């Protein structure tokens, strides 16, 4: 499963990294606490959060996460988008809430035997 598949199936908005959506997705992690993500998320996972500030880009980049998905219709700040493009981080958005987003993603991943 790659990011492109997730964007299409969940109807996501792409804020940054539109040229990198062929990247593989190995799983997902949900959290709004940055240290929790630093400690527990694994390489290649998609990170679901409501945080929109610039620091999420460093976290995703340092952990080699496949993308960040901002839920609840949150819009990343302009400097977040600039940092994402610079660091090669894919930044996505949805108007959906975390729970339904995770549910849909879980079903997708079940189909691909990723969970």
């Amino acid at each position, binding site marked *: 499963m790659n990011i492109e598949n997730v964007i299409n199936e969940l109807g996501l908005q792409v804020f940054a990294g539109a040229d990198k959506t062929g990247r593989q997705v190995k799983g997902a992690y949900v959290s709004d606490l940055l240290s*929790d993500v630093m400690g527990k998320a694994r390489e290649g996972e998609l990170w679901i959060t409501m945080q929109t500030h*610039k620091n999420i880009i460093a976290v995703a980049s340092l952990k080699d996460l496949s993308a960040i998905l901002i839920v609840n219709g949150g819009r990343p700040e302009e400097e977040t988008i600039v940092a994402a493009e610079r660091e090669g981080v894919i930044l996505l958005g949805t108007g959906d809430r975390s729970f339904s987003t995770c549910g849909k993603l879980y079903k997708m991943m079940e189909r691909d035997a990723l969970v």
Partner: protein
Amino acid sequence: MKDMKFEYPLEGGDFIKAGYASSSLKKILNQLNLDPDLVRRIAVATYEAEVNVVAHAFRGIMKVLVSPERILIRVEDEGPGIPDIGKAMQEGYSTASDRVREMGFGAGMGLSNIKKNTDKLEIHSELNKGTVLEMTTLIKG
């Protein structure tokens, strides 16, 4: 491989630049063809140390020594110091401000993340003076 030294200045309160030192170091370590998992563990440890300086101290410096057997990272800061290191090591304990917590920092996991991602961690702290963190990561060849 010869020993290599790098230094990164850190600014207290500057959340815009938080992560810059760790990202710069990670790029260098990746170029050295080290194991990606080892590089990621160092990235976690340095990021947490960097954020601690930004969230709690006035200023600091990250000094990195890369040698063939190990990577030694020393983060020194001028700041309030840690009154109770034992408590600070406990997961969930944090003295971060509300502003910092709203950004998703201050979960009280920083030091334990550093401990889990390094082979050795030493902390020296003096109240109203500052804190020194020394983290060692062994390179298994």
